[in-house]
């Protein structure tokens, strides 16, 4: 039982990053109906930026806030300069631009940040020494404790950061005028335009938000793995998009639940089947495969995800 709890707790930290990026994907999908394939690479580029600022002597927190603001602007520029004109051409054009961005930004990260191809050490936002953890349960003899569930400050910090950010996003969606406008654009762009909402500005803002959220996710995730390389965010993007799909691409709540549960499933699959006969086939590297099989099963039963709304098409 303690093992189980330990794996769940380990999974929650990564899962919270997946749900954060999934939230970014959902924000864009609701506005435009497109899956942003370049989300991970946009976050990667910005996360390298955070690392660069940190290496120039800035506090990591300060560097993150600056890059998040810059990413907000950058996301808006990408929407305005690339996605919007492409969207006017055809839906396929948006996919092409996103895939081009994916390759271009990844390559650019490799060019701009020296040593990124081999991987660079990444500092953690939270205390991450050998003794920085809470022990839940377990037995103590004097000052030496063993057993129980170990919850690292790093994992707690990640989870709390992400949950706070998610709560803020929900407040934005539900309680502010901008959020209302965003929901209107997601629900019915034409009607939103008719009542005077500037859809273009809202879409730019969605892209900006998504990018800013992405860099926070990237920085926290690189902190967990203590390393950043050119492939880091691709895997995160993959799991984030899987989480968004699981929850339903147009449901922010679904994205959060999807991300957390995917993180937990990943952690459990990585650790549990070691002792089972098929343990050779399932292990660390195939955890994602198992996660995808589960998602495929869910999608076959509910094609628009667990909490997604199925669109009724009028013929």
């Amino acid at each position, binding site marked *: 039982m303690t093992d189980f709890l330990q794996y769940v707790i380990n999974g929650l930290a990564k899962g919270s990053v997946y749900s954060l990026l999934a939230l970014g994907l959902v924000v864009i*999908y609701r506005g435009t*109906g*497109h*899956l942003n*394939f370049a989300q991970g690479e946009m976050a990667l580029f910005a996360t390298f930026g955070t690392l660069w600022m940190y290496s120039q002597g800035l506090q990591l927190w300060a560097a993150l806030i600056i890059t998040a603001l810059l990413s907000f602007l950058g996301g808006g520029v990408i929407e305005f300069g*690339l996605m919007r*004109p*492409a969207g006017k*051409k*055809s839906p*396929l*054009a948006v*996919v*092409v*631009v996103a*895939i*081009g*961005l*994916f*390759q*271009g*930004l*990844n*390559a*650019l990260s*490799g*060019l*701009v940040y020296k040593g990124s191809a081999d991987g660079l050490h990444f500092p953690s936002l939270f205390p991450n020494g050998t003794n920085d953890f809470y022990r839940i349960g377990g037995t103590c003899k004097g000052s030496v404790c063993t057993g129980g569930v170990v919850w690292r400050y790093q994992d707690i910090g990640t989870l709390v950061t992400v949950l706070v950010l998610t709560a803020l996003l929900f407040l934005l969606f539900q309680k502010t005028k901008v959020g209302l406008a965003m929901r209107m654009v997601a629900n019915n762009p034409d009607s939103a335009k008719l009542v005077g909402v500037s859809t273009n500005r809202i879409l730019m803002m969605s892209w900006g938000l998504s990018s800013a959220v992405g860099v926070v996710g990237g920085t926290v995730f690189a902190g967990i793995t203590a390393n950043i390389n050119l492939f880091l965010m*691709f895997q995160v993007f*993959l799991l984030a*998009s*899987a989480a968004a*799909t699981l929850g339903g*691409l147009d449901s922010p709540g679904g994205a959060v639940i999807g991300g957390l549960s995917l993180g937990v499933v990943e952690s459990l699959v990585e650790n549990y089947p070691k002792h089972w006969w098929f343990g*050779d*086939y399932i292990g660390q*590297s*195939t955890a*994602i*495969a198992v996660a*995808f099989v589960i*998602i*495929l099963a869910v*999608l*076959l039963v509910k*094609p*628009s*995800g667990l909490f997604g709304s199925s669109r009724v*098409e009028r*013929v």
Partner: protein
Amino acid sequence: MTLPIAIKSGSTAHQLTRVAAIAAIAAVVYNFYLNGKPSTLGSLTEACILATTAVALNLLLGFNGQISIGHSAFVGLGGFASGYAVNQLHWNPYASFLLAVILCFVIGLVLGLPALRLKGPYLALVTLAVAFVFPTIAGKFLDRKLKRATKINGLRLKPPTWTGLKPTRTDTAVFIYLLAVVLLVVAYVIVRNLRTSRIGRSLVAVRDNETAAAVMGVNLRFTKTITFGVSAAIAGAAGWVSAAYFSTMTVASFTVRDSIVYLLALFLGGAATLTGPIVGAFVYYFLNKYLLDHAKNWTWLPGPLAGGPVAPFLLGVLVISFVFVAPFGLVGFVKAQGRRFFVIAPRPLELAATTPQLVEHSTAAADET
């Protein structure tokens, strides 16, 4: 004479231009057959493999509107399955071709099943997952069966005697090059004939509006799964060629990144055109090769771009700019420019005997309303 000049479809002039185009391509192929160095032939073979895969992807994405980021898995499956059958089960290398094609066709059909329920980004994600998972599963399989973690040997094909080629390095390269060209041509002809047939029209109808196609009697399930299967089978054939070409294959040769290269090549040439994927693949392959060789020395590039591996970056930028400059790719661009000078006029429809009745009927209906 006023521009554009109209050429009647099916007229002698039209047929002559076709024959000229085919002759020109055949001459180029033959020239490399006679004079090509093994390295050049190798590059051409790789480009042909990329082109065959792009043709397969075009059938699925361009004509049927189903996006797949998973074709690297089919190419890899074709390659690994044939390599395994030849090296471990001692199959005939040509029989392993059938294995690669049939296996990929069946797996493609299976993957086409979720595609029936999933649309757009959901489907893209599932195929992406397949591509992502494939190297891991293949690696595990090889690890268990061969005690060799990541590699599998190629087919080690030798040219058969009736070709007149000797089993030397040069002649083997020539043979595999010809094999790749032949398979590319076969794939092209299959897609071309499919496109102009009843099935091809139903493919496009499904792409443009599923509901309307279903209402007009197109069997959605059949059309979509079969397209997925055929596309996967062609990709599997490309995988077989790569197994014949490479002496060893690693699981790292077939990753999501390769799937993205197929897509970029397809978009560069022009999706939903017949020759687009082939043109795109050749341009992409040789441009990439050129940039890899030469861009290192381009010190005039700004800032961090100078002296680095800029090839993937520049190709990404190129594909993005193509969306705005030439939305239908190179082929679409050339066609649009060519249309200012030559137009191929379609043959006038021959009116069937039943047509007047239909017309009368419809006017009567119009009068009633």
